[in-house]
C-alpha cells in the first residue's frame, strides 16, 4: 500500500503530469471566479477532449479542475457578494460584509488558508476511507438518508434567515419547486403546465443563477456603490492566515463536516458550506457579529467546501455513485477514459486511485498558493465601478444559463426566477433555504417513499435513524434557543411593520403557489402526490402562522422589507423595476438579434447609459465581449441562442 502511494507520487511529479495538473488547476481557478460557471460547466466543456486519453494525465487535470473551484469561488463571494459557485454561498454572509469594511484581504487570507487545510484534510480522509468506507457507507440505508436530508433542511431553514419560520417556509417552497417534473415513484408529471421544458424540472444552474447572481447584481447596481471605499487593503492576508490557525479546531470540525456530507450521495458542496456555517455559528460563544463580518463565518464554510471533494470522491470511486453534480460528470469522464469505478479502483487501478489522491492534495496547495499570491491584484477589482462590470456579468449569467439545456426556455426561466429571487431578497425570505430545498427535493421525495416501501413505519426503529432523529431534535432545539434569545429588532429598521402591503402581497403569492401545488397534485395517484401534498400542507400551515404574525404592531423579525433600510438621501435613484427592466432588456435584445448581436447592442447601450462612458469606449467594450464569446463559441463548439433576425435572414458566423 505505502509503496503504491509513493509510486503514484513519483509518477505524478514528472514535468508532463505536473503540466496537466497545473492546467486543470488554472482552469478550475478561472471558472471558480466566474459566477455561474462552476466545476460542472467546466468539466462538461472538458469532457469531449479527454476521450481515450492517458488516465494518468487526464485524471490529474480533471481533479485539478474540480479541487480548486471551491478555492477561487471565494473571490467573487467576498468581493462582490456573488457566489463563484454554489459552494461559496455561505461565505458571502460574512465574507462580503468584511470586504465592505475594507477587510477583503483578511477574509481572503483566512478563506484560502482554510480551503488549503480543508482540501488536504479531504485528501487524507479519502486515503483512510479506502480501507474503511465500504462498511460505513453500507450502514447508511434508506431511512438514514431520509433523516440526513431532514437534518440538513431544518438546519438550513432555521439558520439562514432572520426569521426561522420564514426560513422553513422557503425550504418547503424549494421542495415544492423541486418536485416539478416526473414523480420518482410513478413517473407522473407534476407542475409541468404541459411544457416539455419542465418535464425534468428547471435545471439547478438556472435556479442558482436566478436566486443569487441576478438579485445581487441588481442590488449592487441600484445602490451604485463600489464594494470597498478603502483603496489600500493593508497586510490583512497574513492576519487572515493567522486567524485560520487560531480557529484550528473550527477548521478541523468543518473539514470533518465537509468530508462526511460530501461522502453521502445527494448532498454536495452546495449543502456542505451551509451546514458548516450553521455549525460555526452554533458553536460560537459570541454570535453577534455573524452575518456582519465574523471571520469564523468565512473559515468554516471554506474549510468544509474544499474538504467536500475528498469526501465526494469516496462513494464515486468506490461504488460509482456520484455524491454531486460535478462528481456525476467525473464519473462520466472515468468511463470515457476506460476506467470502471467500483471495487476495481481498490484492486486493479489502485495506482490511479492514489494518483487521484495526490492530485487532490497538490492541486489544493497550488490553488491556495496562487490565490494567496494573487489575492492583492484581484482585490483591486473592488475599486472598479460595478456599472462597468455589470453588463458583462449579466451576459455571462445568460450565457451560463443557456448552457443548461441550450433552449430559449432557459433564458426565460432565468428571468422569471430571477424576479422571484429579487423579491425574496427584498422581503427577507431565505434564498439559500429555497435552493437547498430545491436540490434535495427529489432526494427527499424518493427516500420517504423508498423508506416506507421497504420498511413501512418500522424504519423508525433502525438504530442509525434514531441517532439521526436525536441530532435533528438537538439541532432544532439549539437553533430555536438561539433565535429566542435575540434582542428585539430596533424600531427604525427593515423589520418595522410600516407599509406592509408589498410584503403581504408576496406572502399572498406564496400562499397561492402552495394552493396551486395542492390542486395540481390532487389529480395524481397516491404515491405521486403524497410528497407534494404533505410538503404543501406543512408549508401552508407555516404560511398561515406567518399571516397571524403579520398582525403584530411592533417590529418583529418576521417583517422585512429592505426598502425601509434606505431613507432620505440614501434612497436609490431608481426603483427595483428599473433594473428588472435592464435584466429583461438583454432577453429582448437576444430575442431580436440573437446572442452575439444582442449582447453587442446591450453592452454598448448599458455602458453608455448606466455607466456613462463615452460612446467609442462603450463600443470597444462590447466588441471585446463579442470577440471573446465568438472565439469561445467557435473553439468549444457552443451553441448560442438565435433571435428573430436569424429566423428571418441567413447571417454569417458569428452572427448566426
Amino acid at each position, binding site marked *: 500500500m505505502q509503496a503504491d502511494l509513493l509510486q503514484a507520487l513519483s509518477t505524478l511529479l514528472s514535468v508532463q503530469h505536473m503540466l496537466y495538473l497545473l492546467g486543470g488547476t488554472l482552469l478550475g481557478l478561472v471558472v471558480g471566479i466566474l459566477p455561474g460557471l462552476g466545476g460542472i460547466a467546466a468539466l462538461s466543456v472538458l469532457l469531449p477532449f479527454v476521450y481515450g486519453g492517458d488516465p494518468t494525465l487526464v485524471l490529474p487535470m480533471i481533479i485539478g479542475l474540480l479541487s480548486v473551484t471551491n478555492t477561487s469561488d471565494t473571490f467573487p463571494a467576498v468581493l462582490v457578494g456573488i457566489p463563484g459557485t454554489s459552494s461559496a454561498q455561505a461565505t458571502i454572509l460574512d465574507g462580503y460584509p468584511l470586504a465592505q469594511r475594507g477587510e477583503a484581504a483578511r477574509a481572503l487570507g483566512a478563506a484560502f488558508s482554510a480551503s488549503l487545510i480543508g482540501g488536504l484534510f479531504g485528501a487524507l480522509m479519502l486515503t483512510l476511507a479506502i480501507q474503511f468506507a465500504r462498511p460505513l457507507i453500507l450502514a447508511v440505508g434508506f431511512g438514514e438518508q431520509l433523516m440526513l436530508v431532514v437534518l440538513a433542511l431544518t438546519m438550513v431553514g432555521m439558520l439562514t434567515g432572520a426569521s426561522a419560520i420564514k426560513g422553513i417556509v422557503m425550504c418547503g417552497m424549494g421542495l415544492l419547486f423541486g418536485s416539478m417534473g416526473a414523480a420518482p415513484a*410513478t413517473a407522473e408529471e407534476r407542475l409541468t403546465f404541459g411544457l416539455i421544458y419542465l418535464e425534468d424540472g428547471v435545471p439547478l444552474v438556472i435556479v442558482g443563477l436566478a436566486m443569487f447572481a441576478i438579485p445581487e447584481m441588481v442590488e449592487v447596481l441600484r445602490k451604485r456603490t463600489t464594494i470597498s471605499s478603502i483603496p489600500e487593503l493593508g497586510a490583512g492576508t497574513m492576519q487572515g492566515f493567522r486567524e485560520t490557525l487560531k480557529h484550528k479546531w473550527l477548521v478541523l470540525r468543518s473539514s470533518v463536516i465537509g468530508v462526511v456530507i460530501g461522502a453521502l450521495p445527494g448532498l454536495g458542496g452546495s449543502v456542505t458550506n451551509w451546514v458548516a456555517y450553521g455549525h460555526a455559528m452554533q458553536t460560537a460563544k459570541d454570535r453577534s457579529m455573524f452575518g456582519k463580518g465574523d471571520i469564523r463565518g468565512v473559515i468554516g464554510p471554506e474549510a468544509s467546501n474544499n474538504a467536500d471533494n475528498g469526501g465526494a470522491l469516496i462513494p464515486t470511486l468506490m461504488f460509482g455513485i456520484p455524491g454531486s453534480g460535478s462528481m456525476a460528470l467525473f464519473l462520466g469522464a472515468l468511463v470515457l477514459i476506460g476506467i470502471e469505478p467500483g471495487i476495481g479502483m481498490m484492486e486493479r487501478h489502485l495506482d490511479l486511485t492514489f494518483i487521484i489522491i495526490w492530485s487532490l492534495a497538490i492541486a489544493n496547495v497550488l490553488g491556495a498558493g496562487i490565490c494567496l499570491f494573487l489575492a492583492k491584484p484581484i482585490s483591486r477589482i473592488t475599486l472598479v465601478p460595478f456599472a462597468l462590470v455589470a453588463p458583462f456579468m449579466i451576459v455571462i449569467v445568460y450565457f451560463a444559463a443557456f448552457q443548461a439545456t441550450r433552449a430559449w426556455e432557459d433564458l426565460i426561466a432565468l428571468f422569471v426566477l430571477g424576479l422571484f429571487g429579487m423579491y425574496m431578497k427584498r422581503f427577507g425570505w431565505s434564498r439559500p433555504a429555497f435552493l437547498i430545498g430545491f436540490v434535495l427535493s427529489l432526494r427527499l421525495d424518493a427516500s420517504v417513499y423508498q423508506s416506507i416501501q421497504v420498511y413501512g413505519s418500522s424504519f423508525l426503529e433502525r438504530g442509525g435513524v434514531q441517532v439521526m432523529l436525536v441530532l435533528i431534535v438537538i439541532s432544532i432545539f439549539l437553533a430555536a434557543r438561539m433565535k429566542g434569545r435575540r434582542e428585539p429588532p430596533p424600531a427604525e429598521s427593515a423589520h418595522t411593520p410600516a407599509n406592509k402591503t408589498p410584503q403581504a402581497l408576496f406572502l399572498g403569492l406564496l400562499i397561492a403557489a402552495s394552493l396551486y401545488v395542492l390542486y395540481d397534485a390532487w389529480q395524481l395517484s397516491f404515491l405521486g402526490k403524497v410528497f407534494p401534498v404533505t410538503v404543501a400542507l406543512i408549508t401552508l400551515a407555516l404560511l398561515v402562522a406567518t399571516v397571524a404574525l403579520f398582525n403584530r404592531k411592533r417590529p418583529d423579525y418576521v417583517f422585512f422589507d429592505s426598502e425601509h433600510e434606505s431613507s432620505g438621501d440614501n434612497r436609490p435613484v431608481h426603483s427595483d423595476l428599473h433594473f428588472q427592466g435592464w435584466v429583461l432588456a438583454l432577453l429582448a435584445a437576444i430575442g431580436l438579434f440573437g446572442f452575439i448581436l444582442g449582447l453587442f447592442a446591450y453592452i454598448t447601450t448599458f455602458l453608455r447609459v448606466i455607466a456613462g462612458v463615452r460612446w467609442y469606449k462603450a463600443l470597444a467594450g462590447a466588441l471585446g465581449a463579442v470577440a471573446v464569446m465568438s472565439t469561445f463559441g467557435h473553439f468549444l463548439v457552443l451553441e448560442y441562442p438565435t433571435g428573430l433576425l436569424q429566423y428571418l435572414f441567413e447571417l454569417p458566423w458569428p452572427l448566426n
Partner: protein
Amino acid sequence: MFSRSKVKFDLDKWEPVLLSPQGAVVYTTPAFGISGPQDLAKLKGKSLVFGGQSASSSESRIIMSLELLGLKPKYVWGMNRGPVRLAFERNELNINYDSMPGYLGAASNLVKAGKAVPLYTMGITNNKGVLVRDPNMPNLPHFGEAYESMYGKKPSGPGYDAWQSTNKMMTMLNKGIFLPAGTPKPVLKAWRTAIANVLKDPDFEKEAGKIIEGYPQFVGEEATPIVKDATSFKPEAWAWLKNYFKSQHNVTIE
C-alpha cells in the same frame, strides 16, 4: 415503446444499420437459502424487494419475468442502478438484475464474495428467432429454462408473448444505429457496408471484444425481422401487458 404520447417516431419504419444486443442477469441474495438457479422455486412466497427506475422503463422485461415466474416482489421505483446495487448489498433490496457489463464489472464480485446468487439471464434471440443462452454466461439458464425448471413446462400464453416482444426490444435492440425512413438506397448501402467492414476488421475485433462481449451483431436486413418482432405485439399479448401494468403498477399504457 409502449406508445407513450411523448414519443413521436415509428421505430419499425426506420432503416436498420446495426443492432448490437446486450443481455442482463437476474440475481438474489443467498439469505433465502439459495445456492443456484436450481433453487429458484424456493423464492416463492418470500418477501422480495426489487428496486428500479420505473415499471415502464427498460426494467419492464425483468419485472415481467418475475411476474411470469409467480414471484411478487415489492417494487421501489425512482432508483438508478448504482444506488440499487448498493441497497442490494445492504440487504434492503434482495432481488436485482444488472446489464451484462454491469454484472461482469461489479455484481460478479458480489457473487464471488458469496453475497449474491445468479438465477437466470434474459437470454438472446438467435438468427432463427429462438431464445438461447447468453454467450457470456453459457452455464446459466435463460428465462425460458428457468420457467421450465420451476413449472415443468415451457412458458407460453399472452404473458410470455408480451415478455418476448419486450425482451427483444430491450435486449436485442439495446444499442442500434438506424437511418430515417426514406433514406436513399445508395446511402443506406454505404452505411451498411461500412459497418460490416468495421465488424470484420481484426483490429476492431481485438478492441471491441470487451464492449460487445461476444454478442452476435446484426447488420442491415438481418435486423429487420427482429425489429419487426419487437415492435409488434400480438393483440392478446398487448392486452395482457396493459392489464399487468394497470393492475400491478398502476401505470396506464395506450
